[in-house]
């Protein structure tokens, strides 16, 4: 062949007859993709970092350099830290409940039950609904006049119940967490069901023959076997919970006051309602920094890097 070309064994160089192999060819091949990724990923990040050191708001033309003013403001902003606390509380409550319920459901559906496929499909339905729609639907369910939840509680209580789920401070968190768990426990269930289905049955059967109990088998054999998958599921859901927005926005808009305002809601309010462009960029970088530390720690702790 007149124009034979070969990729060298290491994929590092292209050899044309009569020409020395181009050592940099592999870089030329991936350069467009890298450029695109940097352009859409890194450029906005660097740009936002620059903006966070300015005085920008959408209402004024001032683009002057602000130094660390916006970052210093972060430490004085009580509402910001409260919103982070609210986010942490919701995550700390919802994540374990979703894990436990998901695990119980997965254990239940591990056995070959009649109509299993249909039930699994139905159970997964909430996860395909948009969170804002789920939140709006739950708002209707919680409605004092037309919602069925108060009516059902009223049947059990034997008298009409007029609980204001989205208004009263003692009810708003249960309402949010109930909605969140309803929507996302099926995700945990599906992942764990897949993981449990792949546990080597010969090991559990051998342990049973040796006289090990259910709990011991679960802790010593099943849990280590499904741990990598479970850890990934926890990480994904944990990150989802940190950026929770839609459900709370639909249910309470962060109220009463700012009692259920999460970091995503706070960032949205600052950026898109109050137009504090530079300060919002500083908030975003604080969140990025915190998440990077937490996720790195979690990945190491969970052994996912291995």
């Amino acid at each position: 062949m007149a124009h034979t070309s070969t990729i060298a064994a290491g994929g590092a160089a292209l050899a044309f007859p009569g020409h020395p192999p181009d050592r940099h060819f592999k870089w030329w091949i991936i350069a467009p993709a890298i450029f695109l990724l940097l352009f859409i990923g890194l450029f906005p990040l660097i740009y936002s970092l620059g903006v966070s050191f300015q005085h920008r708001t959408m209402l004024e033309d001032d683009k002057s350099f602000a130094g660390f003013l916006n970052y210093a403001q972060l430490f004085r902003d009580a509402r910001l830290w409260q919103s982070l606390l609210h986010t942490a509380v919701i995550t700390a409550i919802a994540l374990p409940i979703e894990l436990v319920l998901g695990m119980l459901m997965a254990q239940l559906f591990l056995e070959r039950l009649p109509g299993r496929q249909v039930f699994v499909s139905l159970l997964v339905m909430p996860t395909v609904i948009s969170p804002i729609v789920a939140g709006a639907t739950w708002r209707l369910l919680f409605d004092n006049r037309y919602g069925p939840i108060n009516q059902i509680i009223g049947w059990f209580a034997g008298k009409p119940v007029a609980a204001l789920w989205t208004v009263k401070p003692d009810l708003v968190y249960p309402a949010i967490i109930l909605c969140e768990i309803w929507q996302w426990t099926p995700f945990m269930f599906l992942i764990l069901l897949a993981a449990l289905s792949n546990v080597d049955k010969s090991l559990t059967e051998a342990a049973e023959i040796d006289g090990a109990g259910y709990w011991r088998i679960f802790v010593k054999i099943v849990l280590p076997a499904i741990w990598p998958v479970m850890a990934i599921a926890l990480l994904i859901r944990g990150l989802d919970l940190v950026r929770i927005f839609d459900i709370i926005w639909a249910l309470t808009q962060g109220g009463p006051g700012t009692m259920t305002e999460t970091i995503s809601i706070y960032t949205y309010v600052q950026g898109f309602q109050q137009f504090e462009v530079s300060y919002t960029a500083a908030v975003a970088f604080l969140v990025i920094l915190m998440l990077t530390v937490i996720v790195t720690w979690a990945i190491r702790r969970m052994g996912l890097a291995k």
Partner: protein
Amino acid sequence: MKMLRKLTLTAAAVMAVGWTAAAWAQSAAERAVNEAKKYSGTTITIVWEAGLQSLDPLHFSGPKWKELTGIDVKVVEVATAEMFTKIMQDYRSGAAAYDALNVIPAWMPDLANAGALEVLDPYVDKYGYRDELQKIAPTYRDNQMKVGDKIFGFPDDGDVFLMYYRKDVFEDAANKDAFKAKYGYDLAAPKTWKEFDDIGQFLTDKNQPNMYGAGFFRQPPYAMYMFQERFRNEGGKFFDAESMKATINSDVGVKVFTDMRNENKFMPPGVEQWGFVENLAAFLQGQTAMTISWPPYGRWAEGYGTDQEALNWVPKTQIAGKVGYALPPGGHPELAAGFALSVSSTSKNKDAAYLFIQWLNSEDISLQRVQLPYTLRDPFRTSHYTSPEYLSRWPNAKDYLGALKAGSETGLLDLSLLQTDKYEEVLRQSISKLWGGDDPKAILDQAASDWDAITDKIGVDKQKAVYQTWAAKSGAYPQ
């Protein structure tokens, strides 16, 4: 020869004067149409509130304008809460996606100061609109049109809170006797909040759970306007005009907050969650005897236009012919929200956009628009209140228009400062805390502190100047 030239010049001058006179004899709407024909074949884009409001340009004014001038109207529907953001984003990005705008008057200082709105004075003079502009009801004309001494928008929606009450219940002889015996005065539409409380409690005690004395929308975005109205009616001032320190936590503020929460007790259970639709449904179905809301409630309560497809979500009224109209207690209703028509400063079709809003806002066309039952646009011109056509729309339309006119004369403007929404957000949060059960004094102390922080950040002197200009307007505080 000299004589001939003289004659020719005289004839030309007479003709010119004649043409000019003929041109100026046209109505503002006709003038806008004739001038706009120059721009036939172009497209203008207008931002309009999503939902019922936008059916006006989509079904009525847009197609009509196209037919008259050949100019296409593209309507960008935006949710109210997003309108300010979208307009500012368009301006800051320089996208120039919008030509004409619907603007809530309270936003006007922010938008005008940012440079997002075109100054309309040159166009008003160029296209001879000044005379018709003067015929807009004084409160809207004098308060919702200018920033400084420049026109930035045409008031185009006579939003005002009215009290709607059940005439049949108030005129019932047994009710009247029992009420007079208990409270010592006649049962009639309440003129003070004390009377409102008495009547509300009386009717609830007598009729619940079938009917309650009153029901209000209580969701924070609506209740925020009700607070602004009531606070000022009872003598409150938002700021100390000299120091610009917030004074919403005054005794008046605390009393208003306390009363507002106490009144929920004689309203239907769960009223704290009510928005526009829940409150409307309760009133139209006869479950509440009094309510306060925007003008469409009055029309729909009489069944006006509710047979149209666009309004098929409005509950069938069970109280047609039984509705009384009055000003809310205190007599100075909130001119809550409203809309003005403006031109985007980045528009590439400014003349065409201007001519469209002049035509929309003109005497002839606006009268047709405010009678469209589905578009939520309310009477705002002096002539609207006395239009024989409108007065004949339903049997007691005269009372309705009379109440709207009275409201337009004594109405109170929404607070309008630099970055108004930040102040309003604090009020919205405060109200949600109020319904949550927090202490009114503590809530308002926090709100005042938050307002002070916002003012400090904007700049006390800068904000003070804007506030003093606003406070000097006829509709800022009860006169």
